[in-house]
């Protein structure tokens, strides 16, 4: 195999369970275990409910905005299922399901989108970086975390998420290049959902696939069916294993689709037709896995009940946690700028306190 062939992604996205629930052999990847797939099923049901409930809460005015990952749950969950506790996740704004599945409290996951603070969780507790709303700017940070871990002799792997639109940003390029030069243990995982708000993939890139972009940096690329949890677990699992073993950064592209609008504030009918969306509904990640598990005879009542209980629980958590108006403290505005508050900020904080006291009087 030549160097170039080593870097080239598969000719077709890796798919181990197709949209009809039919398993396929693959020369390089094996089907995950029964336990992994059943765990994945349970998480998919919970993740889908999280998306549905969060979208509903936007309509009820309980969230400022919610970029749904409906249809992309397999990508979001596979990204975290392949990590160890000590590994890091660098998510984007659309990756709430990923963040939650890492163990972050569902309400704290949504702090940014609720609008009571920019980030609600402690990044160190579950090794999840704050969600990034600028595109691809979190990728160089991921490289830094990975490089520091390597300097310290730790075998940490960093999972860095980005969308198809984000691959056009300079920071994507710089992060991949730095990671390759320093052989940093980062898995760059592109969820190609075909749209950057309204702009289709063809306007982002003329590359044969986004996974091909790795070649220019010396990073092996691979692509997977983004709605096939089994294939994603196999491909991402292998990428994490290689990164941990010192083989340097890996680039994975998942082919998926943003079934819903960019956010609740978006009107997808202005830029795409319904008949484009319909075939993707048949490729749903949950349906195909359900079909497969049923045909294997693995989806018994206990598994279904466990999955449903997890979904009911997370929906209740969101409703109960987001229904009360969040308590915000104006003093927080000045509290976290510097380790030691400057005199000028103390004066401005005092001004605001006085202003509020006068309003109350």
């Amino acid at each position, binding site marked *: 195999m030549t160097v170039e062939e080593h870097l080239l992604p598969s000719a077709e996205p890796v798919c181990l369970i197709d949209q009809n629930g039919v398993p396929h052999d693959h020369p390089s990847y094996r089907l995950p275990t029964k336990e992994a797939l059943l765990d994945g099923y349970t998480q998919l049901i919970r993740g889908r409910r999280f998306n549905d409930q969060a979208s509903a809460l936007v309509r009820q005015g309980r969230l400022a905005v919610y970029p749904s990952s409906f249809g992309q749950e397999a990508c979001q969950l596979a990204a975290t299922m392949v990590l160890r506790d000590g590994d890091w996740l660098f998510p984007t704004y659309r990756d709430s399901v990923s963040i939650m599945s890492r163990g972050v409290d569902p309400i704290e996951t949504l702090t940014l989108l609720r609008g009571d*603070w*920019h*980030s609600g969780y*402690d*990044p*160190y507790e579950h090794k999840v*970086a*704050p969600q990034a709303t*600028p595109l691809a*700017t979190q*990728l*160089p*940070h*991921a*490289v*830094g*975390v*990975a*490089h*520091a*871990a390597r*300097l*310290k002799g730790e075998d940490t792997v960093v999972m860095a998420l980005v969308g198809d639109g984000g691959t056009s940003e*300079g*920071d994507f390029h*710089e*992060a991949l*290049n*730095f990671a390759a*030069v320093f052989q940093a243990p980062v898995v760059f995982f592109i969820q190609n959902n075909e749209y950057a708000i309204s702009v289709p993939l063809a306007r982002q890139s003329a590359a044969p696939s986004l996974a091909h972009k790795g070649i220019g940096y010396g990073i092996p690329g691979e692509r997977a069916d983004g709605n096939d949890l089994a294939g994603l677990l196999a491909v991402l699992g292998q990428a994490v294993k290689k990164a941990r073993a010192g083989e340097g950064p890996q680039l994975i592209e998942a082919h998926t689709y943003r079934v819903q609008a960019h956010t609740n504030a978006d009107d997808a009918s202005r830029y795409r037709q319904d008949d484009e969306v319909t075939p993707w509904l048949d490729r749903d990640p949950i349906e195909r896995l359900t079909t497969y598990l049923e045909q294997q005879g693995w989806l018994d009542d206990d598994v279904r009940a466990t999955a449903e209980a997890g979904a009911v629980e997370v929906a209740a958590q969101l409703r109960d946690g987001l229904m009360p108006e969040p308590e915000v403290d104006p003093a*927080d505005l000045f*509290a*976290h*700028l*510097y*380790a030691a508050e*400057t*005199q*000028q900020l103390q004066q401005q904080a005092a001004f605001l306190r006085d202003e509020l006291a006068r309003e109350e009087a």
Partner: protein
Amino acid sequence: MTHTKISMAQALNQALRDAMTADESVVMFGEDVGALGGVFRITDGLTAEFGDKRCFDTPLAEAGIVGMAVGMAMNGMRPVVEMQFDAFGYPAFEQVVSHVAKMRNRTRGRVQLPMVIRIPYGGGIGGVEHHSDSSESYFAHTPGLTVVTPATVADAYGLLRKAIEFPDPVVFMEPKKLYWAKEEVDLTELQPGIGTAVVRRDGADATLIAYGPAVPVALEAAEVAAAEGRQLTVVDLRSVVPFDDETVCAAVRRTGRAVVVAEASGFASVSSEIVARVTEKCFHSLAAPVRRVTAFDIPFPPPKLEKYQLPSVDRILDAVDDLQWEDS
């Protein structure tokens, strides 16, 4: 350590060396900082002494350099990065403004970024286009950043040591025209705290407020003014953010007149902020409006024309002459 005569460049190099010796989480990286020792030799010998895991060259990409430093600081290191020249630091601007400055705030203090961004800045070295910018106002305008700039050899050492020990990100602006200025210094002397200005010269008649490369020019102007019978106080800010209102305002109140001297263009700048602050806080002590001597509001000129752009002793003395002495 006894008094030795060294340049600002050597003092900065020694500060990095001492910081890296004192704390093994301190790492230094950027463009040409390894074998070459930096284009200004500030990192000279560091790779040889500490190895290429502690001081290393990176690909030529400033956003990548600063972004990687953010991640390394998140993961327990104290990165010091070099932007090779002021205007070459602009590709990193988004990382600085959206992430370096905001990380503590957006995570409610859970993620702190102890990192230093070193930027050689300013004119006076005959640099061609994009090698002479004064970019401090962009950073000073950004909440969450700390911005310091030394004007003396001793402060270069002391402030850089403090900046590396600081719990928050520091933009460390190095006046490159002062890199080769030598002074007798004792590096074991007390180091200045970040956020403290210093009175470099005392005089009762008017105050010159300056920072970085403008400080020696202000001191020279004060020397000439003294010979002509006018005694000027010179305040060296050292720290643009946090701003030392107390030291600045005390000097202005004592003298009743002030001129701000800065190498950057004046419009919407650090110098305009100083004028606003002094006017708001010292109005009743002022015998004349606060004047400014700054660069013109033009792109930094080519080397053959830069002398017309930089603050000069004559311009400072003219501004002092303009402080309505006849009315007092």
